[in-house]
């Protein structure tokens, strides 16, 4: 049985752990609020970009000569998976759910005889995927959004992807990221970005018979400009969603940890008091029986 001193030390150590986890929870909560606002503020741009693309794609539908980023290379051989995770752990299942989804996808594609390339975004993705899928890994990104995600960072990732696409290094690109649902729920989302799936609704609702758009310069030229931009926007959105999800996941995880530490402290305190009491009783008995013996 643990001595009183051991117990006391254990209680102190759990208490300091609880302090850390509760501080982390509070930090995550405030970061979450910021990340959430940022994610919401970015929505109008993405929506309007989508609407514009829908209009463009609809007017170009059926014509040849559409950019390949929209129509694809025609092949379906090489898949690029972009796994978006955090740089840091201690956020529950946030990172591992992305890693798991990426692994499952990669395994599935490999079984179909496709070639897989994995681009890790975030340190955890690289670390956790390296062991099993190290040979498929290409260079990725880390340390994004240390001071909040800025568009330039998303642009960096996007231009890397589009450079690879232009060099014909892959045919289909899918981004795997955590979509923010609420502070306690994230949803692993697989989004195909190349070839870009035309948002059907936007294409329908905005190109009614009366809306015949003029294009300046030609549709093709605008599309060639807008598609890489759209890729950056999609990446930006994924990064923002992921950031908000990360903070949410961390907040929940740290909340649980704080609560568990509290329970543990209570249990330890009871144990400590009992053994202290037992020791006092033992000493008393010893004194009394000693006195009786005289």
């Amino acid at each position, binding site marked *: 049985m643990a001595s009183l001193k051991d117990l006391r030390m254990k209680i102190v150590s759990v208490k300091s752990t609880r302090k850390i986890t509760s501080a982390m929870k509070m930090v995550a909560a405030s970061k979450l609020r910021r990340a959430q606002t*940022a994610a919401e503020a*970015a929505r109008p741009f993405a929506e309007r970009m989508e609407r514009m693309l829908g*209009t463009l794609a609809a007017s170009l539908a059926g014509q040849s000569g559409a950019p390949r980023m929209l129509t694809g290379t025609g092949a379906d051989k090489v898949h690029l998976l972009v796994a978006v995770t955090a740089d840091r752990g201690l956020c529950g299942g946030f990172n591992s759910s992305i890693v798991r989804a990426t692994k499952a996808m990669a395994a599935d594609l490999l079984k179909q005889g496709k070639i897989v390339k994995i681009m890790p975004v975030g340190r955890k993705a690289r670390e956790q995927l390296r062991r099993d899928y190290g040979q498929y890994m290409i260079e990725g990104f880390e340390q994004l959004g240390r001071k909040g995600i800025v568009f330039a960072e998303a642009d960096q990732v996007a231009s890397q992807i589009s450079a690879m696409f232009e060099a014909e290094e892959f045919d289909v690109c899918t981004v795997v990221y955590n979509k923010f649902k609420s502070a306690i729920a994230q949803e692993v989302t697989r989004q195909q970005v190349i070839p870009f799936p035309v948002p059907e609704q936007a294409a329908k609702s905005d190109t009614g018979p009366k809306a015949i758009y003029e294009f300046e310069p030609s549709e093709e030229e605008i599309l060639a400009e807008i598609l890489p931009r759209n890729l950056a926007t999609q990446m930006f959105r994924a990064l923002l969603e992921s950031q908000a999800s990360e903070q949410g996941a961390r907040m929940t995880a740290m909340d649980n940890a704080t609560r568990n530490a509290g329970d543990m402290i209570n249990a330890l305190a009871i144990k400590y008091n009992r053994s202290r009491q037992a020791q006092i009783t033992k000493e008393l008995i010893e004194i009394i029986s000693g006195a009786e013996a005289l």
Partner: protein
Amino acid sequence: MADKIQFELVSPAKLLVSSKVDMVVVPGSEGDFGAMALHAPMITTVRPGVIDIHDGGKVSSSIFVAGGFAEVNEERITVLAEEAIPVNELTAEMAEARKKTAKEALDDAGNERDKAHALRLALVAEAMAAAVA
């Protein structure tokens, strides 16, 4: 005078402007154009330059954009800009700094892609300098 047109300026980070105005003059890639209510539907690319918002018979505000896209229809004009700064917040130093980074990027450019990117930066910097002046 016809009705006003709904002008929206959106950057990736947020919705910057959303208001009803008389006319908006946008630097389209094939020349500046003014958009008023009942404008024919159009989609165009925007070159780096200054958007003038006309309201109440005068230019109510001017905003510098570093390129983007514009969608116009009868009741609304939407400008998607990657970067937008009100002209009165621009300074000559900012333009100078941009020019410098663009020049450095051009010097460092190893391949065609980097070069194109640097040239675009230079274009933005020049437009910014022009907007200040």
